[in-house]
């Protein structure tokens, strides 16, 4: 026992000593002022995009058209604010030289994009540089070749590169939208499948309009879509490659209301099939065409969608009385409800980055679009209104497209985008009415 007391004393001393050492240490570290900056301003980045120049081999108008695409893309994201060219002191910048940053600082630009377009061997040669105006540093610079008809795509690719460098997140401009083009009077609509660039350009029709088409769905990894087509009373599911135009029938499924969705690898589809008044979920291997039953309840289980890692499936079910959102493992095990809020929830769609699930919510007679985390927390509404439906994610998981219907004889559905902040809502131009959008992955 005797040695114990001094030992204790010394332990205490050791503690005191180390505490003092820390104190002394922090005193020294403070020799330099150190501040934590935890607040900033959320605002679009002012970016200067002077007209791209031609290298003499093409019409300068073509070069300018590409910089216009870049500016429009960046502006539509809500994260960039392209500065009005009228304010520019230096109208065009020598592509090979260092820009006069002082001139760009005066117009409050923080980033500057310069580009040069030329033609070589019948191809388009595109070069661009992204400069940080304040530090005078080049942030990005690329050169690539494209087919002459892909001039707009060149603009989208450059916009994606700038977006990625400034935000740290993948872009989504070089993508396409498949949607249902609706024309004619409200009670007798012609519905055709159409495809366009994400900004509403280059619209092409994929079906003739003889049969009613519904709910196209993109494969997350390929340029394939599935969609439903009614020929008579029975809906058929088609698989269509939008590059080659090759089309095949997956099968006929009575009572189906949504087209199947792909697994992340594009090898399987998951769908809801109705039998004896209730609907259950099934997965189908696209190669073997074998189906596997995933749920078996008295209720209506529908609208299934894979998580981006392919391990889970989110779906809607009325097994608890009203439509709610459930999550289960990809083999059908561990089914559990995640939506807990007021109202009923439907059409869940898992974000490509995995952190959120978008849904349509029916609350007090309105259809709202919102998101929640996969565990059901963080439920929030992004957009409200009379009738919003059919959310689909941009491949970077930051923007959603959906359609909004309007009442009245002249009313009809239109496509909109909204980002995760809920502030940046924009209408997407379509030739006529449009519904059921499906966002493609990035085109490679």
């Amino acid at each position, binding site marked *: 026992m005797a040695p114990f007391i001094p030992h204790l004393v010394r332990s205490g001393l050791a503690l005191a000593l180390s505490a003092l*050492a820390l104190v002394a240490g922090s*005193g*020294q570290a403070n020799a330099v002022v150190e501040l934590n900056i935890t607040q900033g301003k959320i605002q679009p980045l002012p970016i200067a995009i002077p007209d791209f120049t031609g290298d003499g081999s093409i019409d300068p108008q073509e070069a300018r058209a590409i910089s216009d695409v870049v500016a429009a893309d960046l502006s539509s994201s809500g994260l960039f604010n392209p500065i009005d060219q009228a304010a520019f002191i230096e109208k065009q910048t020598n592509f090979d030289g260092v820009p006069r940053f002082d001139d760009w600082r005066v117009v409050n630009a923080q980033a500057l994009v310069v580009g040069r377009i030329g033609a070589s061997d019948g191809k388009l040669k595109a070069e661009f540089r992204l400069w940080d105006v304040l530090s005078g540093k080049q942030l990005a610079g690329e050169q690539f070749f494209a087919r002459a008809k892909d001039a707009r795509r060149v603009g989208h690719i450059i916009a994606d590169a700038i977006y990625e460098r400034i935000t740290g997140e993948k872009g989504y401009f070089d993508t396409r939208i498949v949607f249902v083009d609706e024309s004619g009077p409200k009670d007798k609509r012609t519905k055709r499948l159409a495809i366009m660039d994400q900004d509403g350009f280059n619209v092409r029709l994929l079906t003739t309009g003889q049969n009613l088409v519904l709910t196209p769905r993109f494969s997350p990894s390929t340029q394939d879509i599935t969609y439903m087509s009614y020929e008579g009373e029975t809906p058929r599911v088609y698989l269509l490659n939008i590059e080659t135009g090759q089309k095949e029938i997956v099968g006929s499924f009575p009572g189906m209301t949504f087209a199947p969705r792909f697994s992340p690898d594009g090898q399987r589809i998951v769908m809801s099939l109705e039998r004896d008044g209730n609907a259950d979920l099934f997965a189908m291997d696209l190669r073997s065409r074998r189906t596997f039953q995933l749920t078996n309840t008295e209720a209506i289980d529908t609208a299934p969608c894979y998580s981006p890692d392919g391990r889970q499936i989110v779906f809607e079910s009325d097994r608890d009385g009203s439509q709610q959102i459930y999550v289960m493992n990809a083999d059908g095990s561990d089914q559990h409800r995640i939506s807990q809020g007021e109202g009923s929830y439907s059409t869940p769609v898992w974000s490509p980055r995995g952190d959120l699930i978008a849904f349509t919510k029916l609350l007090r007679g309105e259809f709202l679009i919102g998101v929640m985390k996969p565990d059901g927390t963080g439920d929030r509404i992004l957009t409200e209104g009379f009738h919003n439906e059919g959310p689909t994610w941009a491949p970077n998981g930051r923007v959603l497209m959906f359609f909004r219907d309007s009442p009245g004889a002249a009313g009809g559905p239109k496509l909109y985008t909204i980002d995760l902040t809920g502030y940046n809502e924009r209408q997407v131009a379509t030739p006529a009415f449009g519904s059921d959008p499906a966002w493609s992955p990035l085109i490679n």
Partner: protein
Amino acid sequence: MGRGTFISAALHGAILLWVLVAFPPSNLDKAPLVAIPIDLASQGDVTKIKAGTKDAKDDGVLAGKPEEKKPEAAKEAKPPEQTASLDDKADDKKAKPKDEAAAKPDTQKQNDKMAKDPKQAAADQPKKPKPQAKKRDFNPDKIAALLNKIPDAADDPKPVMPDDGTPPKKVKGQTNGTEITMSVNEIDALRARIADCWTPPPGGLGADQIVVKLRLKLNEDGTLVGYPTVANSGSSPFFQAAADSAVRAVYQCQPYELPKAKYALWRDMILNFDPSDMYRSG
């Protein structure tokens, strides 16, 4: 009553006797009260930043100064020594110095070396209560150096300030300087100004974990000296985007309006840009 008092006195006496037997004074004397040189730091020493004088000796690490190599070795050598001497049983006292000398010749050498270091010695000399053992050469400044060395990212090769061509100033803002402090208001104003210039990237999955440590030097007129340096690193594209946004913020904010009399305090700053709160609320 009288009896009770007597019993009480007897028992107290017995306890006292027992204590004397059980804990003989000689035993207590043997306790190896190892002399530990401690600089008593008042609260002010810790919380107040002091401005230096032009002819002051440099007594510690300071921004822009090339890092000394030694603390790297000292880091390994020092802790074992302290634990050994502090945990020793009283009975081992006599054997101890020998053991320790045998066990840690390197440590000994290392500490001797440190003690001889003129820069360190200057801060070390005063107030050693009992300079009993050379090896007890405890030096709070070295601890400071060690703490300063803890890297922010494993693969970050220590934020040494780049040589930006400005002549080194003779101001040494250290412990022996004139005491001045940045007031809370001044700090808040500076923080608010930078926050106003800073547009963090919109974030993304995992982006809320990112903190950018930016080191900047300022001229007396509040403009930046050279480029600010990012003193930590990260592999994610979000880090690069966040670091760029922080650099843009400090460029855009200049010149900084700060009290000239306190230039020694703000000529060299570290700013930690941490947007996690913003992402959470968004």
